[in-house]
């Protein structure tokens, strides 16, 4: 039987209110539970980090795992230099320091690589400048540091070309084409116009525009004495 009139409306409203109340009670309960779980987790994480403080500081792999564990609950040991985490672990300082060193190297080598440095080369430079007694660093540490400075908006970024990871320090919009061509180049260190055309099935204009841009950005050098001309990626040829 259909309910009409005021009584019907009131009943429906009462039902709705009831549902809402139950719903919010439920979610409040869940929230409280979650909050509690989180605080337990945080506590454990804190005591864990104190216990394994030395391990975290000296073992890059361990540090990476710790980092991802923290990230999953929204704790960022990097966020503040003064916070609990930094005080306990000194990791804030660690990444900050590393970030400054990374920026220095990227800027110093910019002229020769056009602002695109191989991650492994960067690591070698870092190890050299940090000296033998410094903490070991991993690829992940570099990635973390770069993430922490990328928020400054100065264009530091890790880009991947095929199997090669590179750190880009010049704000530059690497469009998809640009990346694809560099990925092709990372095999032999250089590409030719015709090679790119054939490999990617692009038309002349598309290839031309990417290669021209790579030259203009000083990312590539051209070998005019090769037939056909070769475009060499400076950042792929590094110091040993």
């Amino acid at each position, binding site marked *: 039987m259909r309910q009409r009139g005021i009584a019907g409306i009131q009943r429906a409203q009462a039902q709705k209110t009831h549902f809402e109340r139950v719903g919010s009670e439920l979610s409040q309960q869940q929230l409280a539970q979650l909050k509690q779980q989180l605080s337990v987790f945080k506590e454990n994480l804190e005591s864990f980090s104190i216990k394994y403080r030395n391990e975290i500081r000296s073992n890059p792999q361990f540090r990476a795992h710790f980092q991802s564990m923290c990230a999953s609950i929204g704790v960022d040991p990097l966020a503040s230099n003064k916070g609990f985490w930094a005080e306990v672990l000194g990791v804030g300082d660690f990444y900050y320091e590393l970030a400054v060193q990374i920026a220095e190297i990227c800027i110093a080598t910019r002229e020769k690589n056009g602002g695109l440095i191989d991650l492994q080369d960067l690591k070698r430079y870092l190890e050299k400048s940090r000296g033998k007694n410094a903490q070991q660093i991993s690829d992940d540490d570099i990635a973390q540091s770069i993430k922490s400075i990328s928020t400054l908006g100065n264009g530091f970024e890790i880009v991947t070309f095929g199997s090669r990871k590179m750190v880009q320090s010049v704000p530059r919009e690497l469009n998809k084409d640009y990346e694809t061509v560099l990925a092709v180049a990372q095999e032999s260190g250089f590409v030719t116009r015709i090679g790119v055309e054939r490999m990617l099935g692009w038309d002349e204009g598309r290839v031309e525009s990417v290669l021209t841009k790579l030259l203009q950005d000083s990312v590539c*050098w*051209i*070998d*005019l004495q*090769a037939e056909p001309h070769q475009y*060499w990626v400076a950042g792929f040829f590094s*110091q*040993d």
Partner: protein
Amino acid sequence: MSVQPHKFPPIHSFTPFFSYSFCPSDSRQPTQETWIRQRTLWIEIILSYCQSQRLFLVDLNELAKSPLFDNKTINRRVQREMIDELFAEIVAIGNGEWEDKKQKKRCFVWWKKPEEWAALIYAWASENGQKICTVYEIVEGDGTEGLEFHGLNMDAVKRVLEVLVKQGKGQIFYGSSDADMGIKFA
């Protein structure tokens, strides 16, 4: 000083910047920023080549055929126009001086600047109590054997002596031939 064959920094590879032969280094780069970098690297290489070969005055046509610019290993050579550009810069930064200002084919290469040579010669003269010497004694004499300026090009040494005159450290006198020309140290 004896001349050893120049050991190129796997040159044309631009070491220490590139780990092996980097072919584009022999082609003049069209991008200005890249070219400036390329030019700086090349000038370093040219100066160190001339120093190791003890070249003081170079003929650009000849130099173009030398292993410096003709890299047979990778079958690349630096074009004459680029060599001219490189030497224009070498002159501009004071590491070179045209011997023929019009044709710009022959250039003194000051891998040590004239002032540095002048200082070396003056120091030698002071230490050995030399008051008057001929150009020949300075660059070919037994007394300077083994010193860095021994074997310095005759024309180059004249330029160096002019520096000493300007600095008030000597006076040039002229003889019947170039070799008789000399300096009286102050």
